[in-house]
């Protein structure tokens, strides 16, 4: 890492390097690609939530004028899935459909209209199976099984961990708080609908352009799905028109157009309709959770037990990881000496859930932060002071063996308390108005890749030549968050040039070094560290060549403002371009590579791989709410948020990530929900999506968006490039609970489930008027057969990071005929 104190590029508000393309309409999204001889693909999707396919007749569709190809499940013998442990998806369902929207056939035709027409000509006979619509039904239904793998019946995953004797910790507490919460599912809703174009190049090899956040994972999984050598497959991630986690899977349509392009020998494009994007989903899991927390009289936590139940939908997706994430990050904000979590994911006949901004952590964070508000109320403590008194200390381990480095959370709390005028507002505003506070934390990159390997998680390559041009190559993906700008800025900072002097080439598995992709807030930290290494290596070469010329030592060569100079005599200088010429003369063609692997985590128990990160970002938030007691209508006029970013590489983009997180969080808090309903029995009794359109799926417009006061806390983390942490996901987490807490402050009702809608507020107000418990939320936590926990002693109880028991697990029932 550079020891330089003053920065020329970093920390200054700048136009992002890809800004010009975005405002001129030149940014080429996947659906903007047009190739000669291109044909168009459409998918036929299941109208039933759970059924066996009896027969598919495609003859009429094949005979339709303009149709070039019709594909069905028979054309795709290999299953796929983004996680190696859940290879449970078919590009087109061969025998069984598992949710309304599951693809069963594809038509490739001269244009979209012709393909649509031909879809109607495909005749599919189905035999309906029992539909499993919610987690309790899934727990109670052994047969039929939606998937033939998993723990048993329709239980996909069961996880149980205990770090110290939590039963004892709760028994010794002065108070034990026991709450049940529900967080409804919602979806990413990127304005860009997923699109892909596949083509066979002059050498006969496959290229796929796609709106994907993870070209490397798609490359790997696509080659396997089509049984092609990976070296003959190239995946190019187009800039994404918003991702938010929804473009992290390998998707059915990506495999289908690839296969079609190989069969037809011509480019094939697909662009999903908005309705199909709702079916593709992979969004926020609906989670029911129970939290039992023991506290002392003065508000210290003695132990916590978190139980979660995730509604996974019909397939695995990232669900195994999502399930862990509903438990593992509960310990990184506040001191929790003993911790236990039980988590379960079940299959239901709905579109699969997966990773959405915050991946599995916003749901338990909501519960934890609302419960803390209840604790503060009961103990007559200020909720901000309570949090400040239990913030985790820097450079410590948590009970579940996560290593905390820098932590700027206390500073974040102090900042929002001051800027919001918290002390004069909390419990002091007139009836109907209130403020609420909450905190959150997130990973700066998942510690482990999704498939086991010991190779770097990010690679960066630099190419320089005598023209003075610097080109940087990296597999990272620009999804709007500004990763291309981060990459250019870091290279520019190290080489002493302008960010616009760096050409950025990213997200192309054919020409860029592997980076695992834009997920888990990993890009700034992992790509950034690799970029520093690559840039420092080539800077050393340039310094050696320039030092000879300026008759000094390489250590005495400085780089700034496009100049290379003697640090002890800045009058002796040359242009950056002249220095490259000297270096090319001395060393030959100039280039370098850098790579990054995260530090090893101290946890050694099975399952310790989910949760570790090179660093954690922290956020605190105060929300002001206004509640109309007559209508239940909730207004949010102002939000104050402070985010511990370590260091802001480009403050304009950092602020944009924080405010965008607040926006998305308010949608989840107040209106967004991906919900389903049963059709009446005479209309098939099917479970259908209630709102697969932008007309009914409500999100905030400019008129709904409050004023947001953003502050960045810069507490540089030694594991991060120039100290910079993530900003894209963490700031979402505290907003939802802060809204719930503000509503309580405003009108004294607890809404323990999201979204908080006017009808729920009114119902709670009615209860309050009748003298009942003024709360709306789940009444009980379902009976989940969690296994005996894996027990690991916390670091302060003599543990070494290994499990101290080896619980016996029931043998999962194997394949049941479909």
């Amino acid at each position: 890492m550079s020891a330089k104190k003053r920065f020329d590029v970093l920390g200054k508000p700048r136009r992002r390097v890809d800004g010009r393309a975005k405002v001129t309409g030149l940014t080429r999204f996947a659906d903007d690609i047009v190739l000669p001889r291109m044909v168009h693909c459409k998918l036929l999707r299941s109208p039933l939530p759970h059924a066996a396919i009896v027969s598919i007749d495609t003859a009429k569709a094949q005979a339709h004028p303009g149709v070039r190809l019709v594909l069905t499940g028979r054309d795709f013998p290999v299953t796929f899935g983004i996680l190696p442990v859940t290879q449970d998806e078919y590009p087109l369902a061969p025998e069984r459909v598992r949710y309304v929207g599951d693809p069963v056939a594809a038509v490739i035709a001269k244009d979209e209209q012709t393909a649509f027409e031909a879809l109607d000509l495909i005749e599919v006979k189905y035999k309906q199976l029992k539909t499993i619509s919610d987690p309790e039904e899934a727990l109670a239904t052994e047969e039929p099984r939606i998937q033939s793998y998993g723990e048993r019946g329709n239980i996909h995953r069961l996880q149980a961990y205990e770090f110290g004797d939590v039963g004892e910790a709760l028994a010794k507490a002065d108070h034990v708080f026991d709450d049940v919460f529900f967080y409804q599912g919602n979806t990413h809703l990127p304005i860009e609908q997923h699109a892909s174009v596949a083509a066979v190049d002059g050498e006969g090899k496959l290229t796929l352009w796609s709106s994907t956040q993870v070209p490397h994972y798609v490359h790997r999984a696509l080659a396997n799905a089509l049984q092609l050598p990976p070296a003959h497959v190239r995946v190019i991630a187009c800039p994404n028109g918003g991702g938010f986690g929804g473009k992290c899977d390998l998707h059915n349509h990506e495999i289908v157009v690839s296969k079609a392009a190989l069969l037809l020998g011509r480019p094939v494009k697909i662009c999903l309709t908005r309705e199909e994007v709702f079916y593709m989903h992979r969004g926020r899991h609906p989670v029911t959770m129970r939290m039992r927390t023991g506290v002392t009289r003065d508000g210290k936590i003695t132990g916590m037990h978190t139980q979660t139940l995730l509604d996974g939908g019909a397939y695995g997706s990232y669900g195994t990881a999502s399930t862990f994430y509903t438990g593992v990050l509960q310990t990184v904000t506040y001191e929790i000496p003993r911790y236990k979590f039980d988590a379960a994911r079940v299959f239901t006949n709905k579109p699969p859930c997966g990773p959405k901004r915050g991946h599995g952590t916003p749901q338990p964070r909501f519960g934890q932060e609302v419960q803390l508000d209840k604790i503060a109320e009961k103990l007559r403590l200020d909720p901000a002071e309570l949090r400040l008194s239990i913030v985790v200390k820097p450079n410590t381990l948590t009970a579940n063996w996560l290593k905390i480095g820098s932590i700027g959370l206390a500073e974040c709390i102090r900042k929002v308390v001051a800027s919001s005028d918290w002390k004069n507002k909390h419990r002091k505003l007139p009836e109907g108005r209130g403020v609420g506070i909450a905190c959150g934390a997130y990973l700066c990159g998942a510690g482990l890749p999704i498939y086991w390997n010991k190779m770097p998680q990010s690679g960066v390559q630099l190419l320089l030549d005598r023209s003075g041009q610097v080109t940087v190559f990296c597999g990272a993906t620009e999804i709007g968050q500004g990763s291309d700008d981060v990459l250019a800025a870091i290279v520019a900072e190290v080489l002493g040039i302008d960010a616009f002097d760096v050409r950025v080439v990213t997200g192309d598995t054919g020409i860029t070094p592997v980076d695992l992709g834009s997920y888990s807030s990993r890009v700034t930290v992992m790509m950034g560290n690799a970029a520093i290494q690559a840039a420092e290596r080539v800077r050393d070469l340039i310094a050696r060549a320039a030092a000879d010329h300026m008759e000094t030592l390489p250590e005495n060569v400085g780089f700034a403002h496009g100049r290379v100079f003697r640090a002890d005599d800045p009058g002796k200088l040359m242009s950056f371009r002249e220095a490259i010429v000297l270096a090319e003369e001395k060393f030959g063609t100039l280039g370098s590579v850098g790579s990054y692997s995260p530090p090893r985590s101290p946890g050694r128990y099975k399952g310790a791989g989910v949760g570790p990160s090179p660093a954690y970002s922290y956020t605190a938030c105060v929300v002001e709410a206004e509640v109309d007691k007559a209508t239940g209508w909730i207004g949010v006029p102002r939000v104050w948020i402070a985010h511990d970013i370590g260091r802001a590489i480009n403050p304009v983009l950092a602020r944009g990530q924080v405010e965008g997180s607040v926006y998305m969080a308010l949608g989840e808090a107040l209106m967004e929900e991906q919900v389903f309903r049963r059709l009446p029995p005479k209309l098939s009794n099917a479970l259908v999506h209630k709102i697969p359109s932008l007309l009914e799926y409500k999100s905030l417009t400019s008129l709904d968006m409050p004023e947001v006061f953003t502050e960045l806390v810069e507490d540089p983390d030694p594991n991060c490039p120039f100290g910079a942490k993530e900003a894209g996901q963490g700031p979402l987490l505290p907003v939802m609970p802060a809204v719930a807490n503000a509503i309580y402050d405003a009108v004294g009702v607890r809404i323990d489930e999201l979204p908080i809608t006017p009808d729920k507020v009114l119902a709670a107000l009615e209860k309050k008027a009748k003298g009942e418990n003024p709360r709306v939320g789940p009444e009980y936590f379902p009976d989940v057969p969690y296994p005996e926990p894996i027990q690991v002693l916390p670091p302060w109880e003599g543990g070494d990071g290994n499990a101290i028991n080896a619980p016996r697990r029931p043998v999962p029932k194997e394949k049941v005929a479909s």
Partner: protein
Amino acid sequence: MSTQAPKNIHLTLRVNGESQEVSFAPYKTLLEVLREDMNLTGTKHGCELGECGACAVLADGVPVLSCLVLALESEGREIETVEGLAHGSNLHPLQAAFADLGGAQCGYCTPGILMTAKALVEKDPNPSREKIKEAISGNLCRCTGYQQIYESIEEGARRMREERR
């Protein structure tokens, strides 16, 4: 269902100050003709039912949702798209402000918002924050939380007023 393809119609559209003859199926929307038949892919789509605003273009200076307008209704109207905003290589002040101030994150809703903002600022050179919010309330952005968009429009309008001086 009829399998007979409808006959194409021919007409002249005026887009970004240039007249161009185009031939397309009569059911096509202005959005589809711009993107598919005129290769003007700067205009985006996000919902196909007039909810997201990504497809906004100007027709005779007024923002319209091009996914709800038939191309054949657009003959004789002056259509403006994001491709026509810059003067040669010089960005329009609104474009420059959006690029500088974080008004564009992923950039997908940006063309529609830029066109809506242009119509607003040409009518009201110094729009209030409330007017800006109202003007773009039909353009959904999932990235920014809108604040940097407001600031970009205010700064773009300021630069336009300065240019006029």
